[in-house]
């Protein structure tokens, strides 16, 4: 039996990896993948808590999170495509007409 701490630590590390990825990467698609990584780290946390407490709420929550992540992915990629058509770049350093 693996203790819950290990799951929580792994998911915290995954979450931080995602956060760091969002902050340092410059490609919109990669940033989006890092956000997905954060969401999956959270799913791991939910499942760990859920099985630790013998309570099914957390697993239900994971399904909802996956659904929402899919909806977000659809919209997000559509936005990236719309931008790429106009700008021919997905580098967020070049997306800078809105400032100050």
């Amino acid at each position, binding site marked *: 039996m693996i203790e819950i701490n290990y799951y929580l630590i792994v998911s915290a590390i995954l979450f931080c990896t995602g956060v760091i990825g969002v902050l340092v990467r410059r490609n919109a698609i990669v940033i989006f993948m890092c956000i997905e990584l954060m969401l999956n780290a959270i799913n791991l946390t939910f499942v760990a808590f859920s099985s630790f407490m013998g309570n099914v709420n957390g697993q239900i929550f994971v399904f909802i999170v996956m659904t929402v992540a899919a909806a977000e992915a659809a919209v997000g990629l559509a936005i990236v495509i719309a*931008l790429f058509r106009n700008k021919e770049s997905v580098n967020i350093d070049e997306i800078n007409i809105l400032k100050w």
Partner: protein
Amino acid sequence: MIQIKDLLEVLPLLIIAFSAIFILLLEVSIKKSETVIFGFSLIAILAAIATSFNYFNKEMIIFNQFLRISNASLTFSVIILISMLITVIASKSYIEKENVNFGEYYSMLLFALMGMMLMIFANDILIIFIGLELMSVCFYVLAGFLRLRQKSNESALKYFLLGAFMTGFILYGIALIYGITGTTNLTLIFSDAKVLTNYVFIIGTALLIIGFMFKIGVFPFHMWIPDVYDGAPTVVSGMLSTAGKIAAVGTILPIILAVNILNFKIIFSVAAVATMLYGNVIALAQTNIKRLLAYSSIASAGYIFVGVASMNEFALRGIAYYLIAYTFMQLGAFIIVAMLEKKDDGSRDYKNVDLDFYKGLGKRNPVIATFMTFFLFSLAGIPPFAGFWGKYYLFFAAIKSNQIWLAVVAILLSLIGVYYYLKIIVYMWFSESLEPVSEEKFSFSDTGFAATVLAVIGTILFGVDPNLFFSLFKFVTP
């Protein structure tokens, strides 16, 4: 168990949900369906407002404790419905002008509306999350609705990336709360006083509150607001700054009040002061009216947080009053900007949104200039407009909670705001037009005009007679 009876208790929510789906069906089944859809969504929102008033003074928890109907949540949802009503009316002429007259637009608005109402009625973090995401995803689409325009694309991408990033934090907070309490039900979570002092629980709640502070646009999570509001279609910016904010405030307020014992007061006070300072000071330097209104909406988030920081029985009343005043005046100002905006000519920028364009507007178009003056006076907090009473009740709440310094600072900072609002008014009435401006002709049958008139009526009505609000929304103490 869920019963059929429960469905009748959430009639406004059901009406909005069904009409949002029905609009998608209308769109594919009828040719030239835009006008039909416009009328249909108007009727749906009006019906939802009318049915909402049946539920006042009936505190109840329904749907397996998933939803909770209370006076406060009903008030917020009615304010959101009003804001959406004005937005839908104003949208018709705007999306025709921008050549994006599609039925999906109204469907997106109604889905967002449903998400916001779900969020406000939620009694379970799961429902809050679903509502929040339903709202946010629709907002990302709406912000990028002018898909041929680079500014709109950019605003949608920024909003999407930052919003999804914040969703991650909100979810992590929810996961920690769930891990400590073993439940996602808000009543159960806050019923155990021992849990409220657990530090993991505090971190979780803080992450949740931070996520919502991002949605409201409170310092230091405000950076997306000017960019998104500047780039989004102007009517949508107005909607984001009113309905979106109201939904986030209405959702997080009960949670903040429930964890009151942690004494977060000072943190919220500091956040409020920083937000007001930032919004008002940066707005002084703006030359683009959409950005100026965006900064003014940051400042308004600061005023709302003065109410949040006071955390007493007067806070809710002040916040609700300010929000309804804010809905009319901010949305009205954005709609006027949208009406004066130049027709889409394939360029990547919005035309006629510079402050210079407003010079001499009083001579060119006295009616619109008068309305704009009303909204700006109201935003500046000058009686007899609704904004004055909104600020009055908010600062009153702060004084009643023994935070006189906060009220004094808030009044001083809102005086800075008076400067840039009056600047526009002076431009409109006492300056000459710089050069012959190419102005878009619009007739008085323009639906934007009808929406503006509604907003003017609201601004004046709630300013002249504050008791109207209390009799309408059944708040006990005037």
